[in-house]
């Protein structure tokens, strides 16, 4: 990928990809406009070098560059290899090289996880399993075995954890503080931790248990263990559970544990869950229930004190009338046939939350996604938007044999321009995730495409709003303020939270004709009867 990036910077080159000829990569290259007949000739073990440039001279220059870049990368690798004494191909050797190994981070194909995990469990080694597609039967066996040995299993499918301020996997630079988080949603954990950081509230530990854990098949095994672990930490004052709605039996276990045993305050953030009267707060135990990431943060701040709540409001909340005023200038420039929202997400939890909120606002019959929630239609072709389309670019059809879109922006760049060409698109909605593991400059990587998208629309007499939010902190390598500033320079709207970006996109597409008060009360604001505990 490094060579592709350097090649794109060559004079006259508009697109460059150097990839293995996996089916996904070949499909992407064809979508990018490269010759199908040539691409289909490549086998899986072949490497494809695809370059598009303005003229023959630029192509010849690029070809020369390719040779030099490969040579220099080999040299860099040789130099790096001498310094990377800590790299091996043997797991047992690695464990011997790291005496006192207390954590293994596992990101290998899911079918191979169980055997390796079992051996590590038998050695008492805790694990974070990033791997997807671990068979659920394997996950259950792993977790049951781990509990008998007192071994913590985070994941599978856990992209993020935080341990005493250190990030494991995709993670951000956040301050340490009085909050503990148990999450079955990777970008959900990142969003809550980053927003808390904006509000001056630190997180001590954030434990990712994987999306299957709160379902019936796994029964919340590690979610409950993690709650007990955080419960014992005297530095932690409030524990947040961040997840899609657990199965009813798991939710019951959680509530029973909290009511029966906890000494701390809890915020249960079940994204898209139903809030029924009488269950939003349990004053006896200080448990509050919310259904969005943004309101989770407000609830945590509320628990910690009025000062913290006021700061949180100032950082991550915009009043409904303020939001409408801010965006009126965007929708007033739309043509009448510009109706649809096209969301191009890199974070799965953001995709999910967007659908949950939009389902309450816009015509469900017009909503589509490649990772649809209940009542939403599945896109016929993930590479092509239909009406309102909420797309998770991290899904398998985009990532098999390719880096995740948080790392490699190629597919998103292509999609931004495709959506810009569609005269029925009223607004593009984007997330940008900063931090460790992410692209060195997620915003910068698509800035040209964002500007070009607006030009494409403009040439056809259309105005194209782009609304975004940045999940990150000021101390992340990419820099939150720098990222926001770049987006502003490209004419993009930046919202402080995903929820506000989603609601903003609906406001634009519906020309301001939505029941903002109602939506805010469901997904943004705290209930009126909340006071500091």
């Amino acid at each position, binding site marked *: 990928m490094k060579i592709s990036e350097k090649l794109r910077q060559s004079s006259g080159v508009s697109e460059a990809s150097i990839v293995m000829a996996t089916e996904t990569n070949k499909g992407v290259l064809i979508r990018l406009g490269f010759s199908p007949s040539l691409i289909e000739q490549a086998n899986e073990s072949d490497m494809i070098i695809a370059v598009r440039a303005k003229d023959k001279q630029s192509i010849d220059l690029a070809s020369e560059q390719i040779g030099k870049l490969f040579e220099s990368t080999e040299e860099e690798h040789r130099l790096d290899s001498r310094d*990377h004494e*800590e*790299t*091996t*191909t*043997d*797991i047992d050797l*690695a*464990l011997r*090289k*790291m*005496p*006192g*190994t*207390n*954590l*293994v*981070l*596992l*990101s*290998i*194909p899911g079918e*191979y996880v169980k055997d*390796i995990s079992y051996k590590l469990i038998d050695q*008492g080694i*805790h694990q974070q399993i*990033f*791997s997807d597609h671990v068979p659920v039967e394997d996950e259950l066996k792993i977790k049951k075995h781990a*509990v*008998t*040995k*007192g*071994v*913590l299993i985070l994941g599978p499918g856990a992209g993020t954890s935080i*341990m*005493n301020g*250190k*990030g*494991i*996997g*995709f*993670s951000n630079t956040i301050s340490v503080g009085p909050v503990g988080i148990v999450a079955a949603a990777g970008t959900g954990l990142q969003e809550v931790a980053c927003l808390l950081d904006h509000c001056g509230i630190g997180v001590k*530990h954030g434990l990712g248990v994987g999306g299957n854990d709160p379902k019936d098949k796994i029964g919340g095994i590690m979610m409950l*263990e*993690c709650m*007990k*672990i955080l419960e*014992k*930490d005297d530095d932690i004052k409030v524990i947040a559970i961040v997840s899609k709605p657990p199965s009813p039996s798991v939710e019951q276990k959680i509530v029973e*544990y909290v009511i*029966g*045993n906890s000494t701390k305050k809890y915020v249960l953030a079940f994204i898209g869950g139903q809030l029924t009267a009488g269950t939003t707060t349990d004053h006896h135990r200080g448990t509050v229930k919310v259904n969005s990431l943004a309101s989770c943060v407000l609830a945590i701040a509320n628990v910690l004190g009025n000062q913290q709540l006021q700061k949180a409001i100032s950082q991550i909340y915009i009043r409904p009338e303020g939001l409408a005023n801010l965006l009126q200038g965007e929708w007033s420039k739309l043509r009448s046939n510009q109706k649809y929202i096209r969301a191009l997400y890199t974070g799965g939890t953001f995709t999910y939350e967007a659908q949950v909120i939009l389902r309450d606002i816009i015509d469900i019959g017009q909503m589509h996604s490649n990772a649809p929630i209940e009542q939403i239609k599945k896109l016929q072709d993930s590479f092509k938007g239909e009406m309102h389309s909420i797309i998770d670019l991290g899904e398998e059809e985009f990532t098999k044999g390719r880096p995740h879109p948080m*790392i490699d922006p190629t597919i998103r760049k292509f999609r931004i321009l495709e959506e810009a060409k569609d005269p029925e698109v009223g607004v593009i909605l984007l997330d940008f995730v900063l931090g*460790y*593991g992410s692209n060195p400059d997620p915003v910068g990587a698509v800035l040209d495409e964002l500007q070009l998208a607006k030009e494409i629309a403009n040439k056809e007499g259309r105005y194209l709003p782009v609304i975004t939010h940045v999940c990150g902190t000021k101390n992340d*390598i990419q820099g939150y303020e720098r990222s926001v500033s770049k987006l502003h320079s490209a004419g993009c709207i930046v919202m402080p939270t995903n929820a506000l970006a989603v609601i903003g996109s609906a406001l634009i597409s519906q020309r301001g004709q939505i029941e903002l008060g109602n939506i805010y009360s469901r997904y943004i604001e705290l209930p009126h009867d909340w006071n500091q505990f």
Partner: protein
Amino acid sequence: MTEEKDTASSATPTTTNMVTTARRLLDSELNVVNIGLEIFHNALKLQNIKVVDVNWSPPPKLDKETEDLLDKIL
């Protein structure tokens, strides 16, 4: 280190071990072995976390007869 008692009525010895051992992990210096994606190794290094990297590849797929034979020998 003495084991802490969980106050939950459903406490079992195994649950108690998990709380104790996991708290030890969370409050200690991390010594990590990364198996798989290099980006995670790099992310840990940037935070000055001790890490050994395993450039893992799947075991070769053998036919059943060869596998059975190897199982007998090894």
